[in-house]
């Protein structure tokens, strides 16, 4: 069957080996950059997986994921700075607020398809960004600084090493992959793919199109917001320009499209390719290189859409079939 993962023994052992290597990685590397790089790979992989549930499976091409990312980051950070709410609880609250925001925006957009949905999602994200930029309660354009606390898992804050962040993000990524593969293999996954094909086909098969689209958006928003809270706790400072901007939304789409939209593992591969390019050019070239990563992205995306629309994951599957 295409699209639905069925695990062979070989795949299970490969995954187990990869997991062991990833678990050992923090012990093997020195310095903070390799750690930061992997954390960003995991985070964008998670964001891509979350995007994929609505974009890849249900065909709702959101270019506004930064709104959910920012809402997650802001909810937990605001609750923490204003009411001393534990960030783990803030994380769940952020997920809920983002899912509610998704429902709110999802209702008027419930019949929009293709580019129209994409345009609406950009508009939504920009409205959120501009609003947050002027909202005094949450610091407006100055943003929020996360108050320093002792490092502990409970406080979701670590100063001496990035390793705990690494493991937490890896855990989040695995959770997202679990959610996505559950969606993909269950009735919901079939229904979302039918909806992606055509609303009419879905309706004659008895599918409540609006309900399933809403469910997909809300799940996606929840996971995206979780990553947002993580990012706030990791960077310890946030303003609208760091979490709510369009380039973040675009990067999320690119990660998923490059890796393979509509496959569970695609975004992970996409993130593993794109994030090193973006982080390395940023660090090595500094301001001189700003935009270089975008040039590389653009080239990659053009190549992918012309020669391999199924993404790298589709390419790997093709090679796998040939070698069988």
């Amino acid at each position, binding site marked *: 069957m295409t699209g639905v993962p069925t695990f062979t023994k070989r795949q299970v052992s490969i995954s187990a080996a990869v997991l062991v290597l990833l678990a050992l990685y923090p012990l093997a590397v020195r310095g903070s950059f390799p750690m930061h790089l992997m954390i960003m790979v995991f985070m964008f992989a998670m964001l891509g997986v979350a995007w994929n549930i609505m974009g890849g499976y249900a065909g709702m091409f959101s270019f506004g994921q930064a709104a959910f990312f920012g809402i997650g980051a802001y909810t937990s950070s605001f609750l923490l700075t204003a009411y001393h709410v534990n960030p783990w609880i803030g994380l769940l609250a952020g997920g809920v607020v983002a899912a509610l925001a998704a429902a709110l925006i999802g209702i008027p957009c419930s019949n929009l398809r293709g580019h129209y949905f994409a345009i609406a999602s950009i508009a939504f994200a920009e409205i959120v960004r501009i609003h947050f930029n002027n909202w005094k309660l949450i610091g407006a354009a100055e943003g929020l600084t996360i108050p320093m606390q002792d490092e502990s898992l409970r406080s979701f804050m670590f100063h001496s090493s990035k390793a705990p962040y690494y493991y937490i993000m890896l855990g989040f990524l695995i959770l997202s992959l679990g959610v996505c593969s559950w969606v993909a293999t269950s009735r919901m996954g079939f229904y979302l793919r039918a909806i992606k094909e*055509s609303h009419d*086909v879905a309706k004659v098969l*008895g599918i*409540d199109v609006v309900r399933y689209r809403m469910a997909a958006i809300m799940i996606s928003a929840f996971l995206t917001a979780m990553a947002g809270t993580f990012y706030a706790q990791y960077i310890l400072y946030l303003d609208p320009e760091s979490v709510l901007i369009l380039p973040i939304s675009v990067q999320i789409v690119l990660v998923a499209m490059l890796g393979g939209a509509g496959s569970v593992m695609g975004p992970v591969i996409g993130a593993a390719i794109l994030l090193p390019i973006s982080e390395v050019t940023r660090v090595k070239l500094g301001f001189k290189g700003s935009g270089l990563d975008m040039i590389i992205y653009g080239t990659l995306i053009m190549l992918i859409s012309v020669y391999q629309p199924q993404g790298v994951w589709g390419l790997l599957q093709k090679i796998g079939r040939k070698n069988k």
Partner: protein
Amino acid sequence: MSAVPLLDVRGVTKRFGGLLANDNVSFTVSEGEIVSIIGPNGAGKSTLFNCITGFYPPNAGHVLYGGRDITRLAADRICKLGIARTFQIVQVIADMTVLENVMTGAFLRSARNGAAHEKAEEVLRFAGLHEKRDAAATSLTIEAKKRLEVSMALATQPKLLMLDESMAGLNPVELRGMIALLRRVRANGVTLVIVEHVMEAVMELSDRVIVINSGKKIVEGPPKEVVVNPQVIQAYLGDRYRARG
């Protein structure tokens, strides 16, 4: 046969701006029947289908299903109640296999993967598509795609199946196969309403034929009577031929 008709269409009227696509159309379908709706191109057959299955809200009139008013229900709710349909231009889910397409229909009655899988296999065997179950839906011939579309509809376990031109574009051999399939569908207790241009199929399958022209129902009756009806000949061929008939 029960006293309440399975489908009861009462005075359905549908306007698109100045165009009267359906003008006060009424008919009933009893359980176990095969009823064909025929008429020249643009007569309003597909519009009528869309009004019955919840794709268009009619401007006036009612649609009753088993005595229950379903006139303004959403299409997916109508499907849940037991009315399945296909489209004039064949619609399948392109990036799925044949089996997955049918499973998507089967999920309506069973949320579990295993049960939907089983039901889909059963329907595919019934429809003669079982050997192609792992093929991509896009790789099928037109005939197989039409069978697939019927299979998807059957997987939702309907009481009433409405087919919009499922014979169009088939060669004579394929046509025989499709007619045989629809007979088996009826034998399984599914009532059929079909919009069809292929008269060979209409004559063979129908218990009753309803003729629509310019949005109005003009004649209704057994197929043999309908095809010699002067009004029907006029509708299809114009006045000159009616004079000769």
